[in-house]
């Protein structure tokens, strides 16, 4: 691994913490037993799973926690698991900022459901007025993410939950917390949330592990059938090394950190040096902006060119959302926010980790400015 690199793509994935690697290694080596077996080492393994479950339950104020293979599966389980359990059809609302694993799951629901996107404002937050208008008595489900993965916008979950309670009290309120978990406080029952998805590899844990936390309601239909693990909601032998890694990641995550001031420093320096800079998302210093993600455009330089030039200087950033950057399409979230064509083509996402240093921010600032200066002259004529 290149230790000179400046990794600012932590919204795509994070480097596992030392404690996580150790926990996974021990689990793979010594704790390999099947937690369903009856001898002592297996019972110990099962206890470790419960220990992790308890930690997540208490940190989120959840009634139940189901381990999954990651955020995508947790979102699918909540959405299709809930809708699969309903006899009657109706509306399914999702914010237009949702991750593809939420959007696509809503759209894959049986035909009796009508999936409708909730419009966004220019800062990337859902328009509450529109949500209020879209909520009907037959709305069965509402999905709003906690923090947007592309813009860093924090969604108004409290207001949304209140509207749902008022206008469609039976609707299931699902929150994709993959980018928000541990970075923002969350008490799901107080917040009126029925299910909350999280992922290990976004918090310096391993890939291949995530969870769905459930509030009060429990009427979910499983998506995977088999040995009945995870209270019948997710069959399959438990990913014990993943769960051990997730446990270590949650314990190890630095709650106090400098991400916000680092992000603002990055923004201020770039704004001072690059006159064409524009923000795709909320104002970086507003309360609507999360600490770790900022999305900027540097017209007329195109995003791919910019990020390759930064890559050559050892700075790794991302173009839009990592889930879709291999497709030659512009981000649907940014389009829904009304971002201009030039800014769309140039959107670069910087995402920080609690371990990002001031020095790294300086290097990133320098690399960005140098790349911009070198490339700005080369525009299509």
């Amino acid at each position: 691994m290149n230790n000179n690199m400046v990794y600012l793509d932590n919204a795509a994935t994070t480097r596992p913490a030392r404690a996580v690697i150790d926990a996974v290694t021990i689990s793979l080596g010594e704790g390999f037993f099947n937690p369903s077996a009856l001898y002592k080492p297996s019972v110990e393994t099962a206890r470790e799973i419960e220990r992790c479950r308890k930690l997540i339950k208490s940190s989120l104020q959840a009634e139940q926690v189901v381990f999954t293979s990651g955020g995508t599966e947790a979102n699918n389980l909540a959405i299709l698991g809930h809708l699969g359990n309903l006899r009657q059809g109706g509306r399914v609302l999702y914010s237009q900022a949702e991750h593809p694993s939420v959007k696509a799951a809503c759209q894959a629901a049986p035909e009796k459901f009508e999936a409708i996107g909730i419009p966004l404002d220019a800062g990337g937050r859902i328009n509450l007025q529109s949500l209020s208008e879209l909520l009907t008595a037959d709305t069965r489900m509402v999905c709003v993410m906690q923090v947007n993965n592309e813009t860093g916008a924090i969604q108004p979950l409290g207001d949304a939950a209140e509207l749902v309670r008022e206008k469609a009290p039976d609707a299931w309120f699902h929150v994709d917390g993959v980018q928000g978990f541990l970075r923002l406080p969350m008490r799901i029952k107080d917040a009126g949330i029925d299910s909350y998805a999280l992922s290990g590899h976004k918090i310096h844990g391993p890939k291949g592990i995530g969870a769905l936390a459930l509030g009060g309601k429990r009427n979910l239909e499983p998506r995977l059938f088999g040995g009945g693990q995870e209270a019948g909601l997710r069959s399959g032998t438990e990913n014990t090394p993943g769960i051990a890694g997730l446990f270590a990641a949650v314990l190890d995550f630095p709650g106090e950190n400098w991400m916000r001031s680092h992000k603002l420093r990055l923004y201020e320096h770039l704004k001072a040096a690059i006159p064409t800079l524009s923000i795709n998302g909320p104002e970086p210093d507003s309360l609507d902006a999360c600490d770790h993600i900022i999305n900027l455009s540097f017209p007329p330089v195109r995003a791919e060119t910019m990020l390759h030039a930064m890559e050559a200087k050892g700075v790794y950033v991302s173009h839009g959302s990592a889930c879709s950057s291999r497709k030659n399409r512009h981000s649907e979230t940014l389009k829904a926010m009304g971002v201009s064509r030039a800014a769309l083509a140039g959107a670069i996402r910087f995402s920080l980790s609690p371990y990002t240093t001031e020095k790294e921010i300086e290097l990133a600032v320098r690399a960005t400015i140098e790349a911009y200066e070198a490339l700005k002259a080369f525009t299509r004529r």
Partner: protein
Amino acid sequence: MNDILLVKYAEIHLKGLNRPYFQNLLLKRVKEAVRPFSRDVQFYDSRIFIRGIRDVDAAVERVRKVFGVHAVCPAVEMDKADFNAICAQAANLMASLNGTFKVRARRADKRYFLDSPEINARIGGFVLENHPGLKVDVHQPEHVLNVEIRDQALLYAREVPGVGGLPTGSSGKAMLMLSGGIDSPVAGYMIAKRGVVLNAVHFFSFPYTGELAREKVLSLARILAGYCGVVKTYVVSFTKLQEAIHTYCPPEYSTLVMRRLMVRITDLLAERERAAALITGESIGQVASQTMEALAVTDVMSSRPVFRPLIGFDKIEIIHLAENIGTYETSSLPYEDCCTVFTPRHPVTRPKISKVLEAEAAIPQAEALVAVAVETAEILYIGPDEADDTLSSETA
């Protein structure tokens, strides 16, 4: 009783006194292709015989793609003395088939106790008795059961068409200008099919194009290597020239100047490689730089012939060819092979050479930039499997 492959060739039969040269080269290429599956490859009776095969289907797929191969026949080889066993095996081969068939016997061993018509009749009769679903049609049969009596008896009912052409290496070497698009791999394939060894030249403009675009081009070279063996690939860093063109040339001439410099660099690499020609995927009128006038302007930059095998093909025809060769899917991946930043909105379609020369002359020290591009080109040896690549890359 053994499973063997019988390999037939076609055009080589037309050769005169130099026929052994082509036959030996084909044998060598077949041996190379089939090496992971068998090392028992022999040539006699104007056929290539492959025995002791580990995975027949995979071996057929490899051999089918060797240029010069007309057809590959998975056959059963058995003792010719036991004619009853031959009949039984014949019935066995035809067991899964329906419709009409005929037996075509070929008796290379003239001392054999039955002549060809007798073999046809006896085996045909036996097959009919055992498979009432089959009927004989000697004029237009749906299936042909071939029985060849040589030192051993050979039976086969399946003939997999080969790619044809001439064995790689029989016609010298040429430089293929390989972009990430649909056309250039097809053009390379068509020339390689005539026995030409391919070297590829790719122009890479980091940071305007990234690692994925480069990987895509190498994947295309790898697919071509599946037919013609290791493709020596030059990756030329073109960024400095691209930026100079953008800075100094009028936009409407920038694409042509770029094409001219690419041809110039490829020609210099051809010199180094002692390659006899350049290959491009151009077709008349497909884009502005492929009008006849534009082709004339780029042609003069090469001191050797520029082959354009797709010159008269429509895009749809080229796509069909690419699908058949197996390059279409890779060519269609989205990574831009040349960033749109450098694509002018209104390129000239009927350029005057004087204007082009003027535009080109505006670039300071263009010849020096070309020389640096040639000198710093990265060289990779791309084989059909990643394991076949030469591990270390070098520069020119």
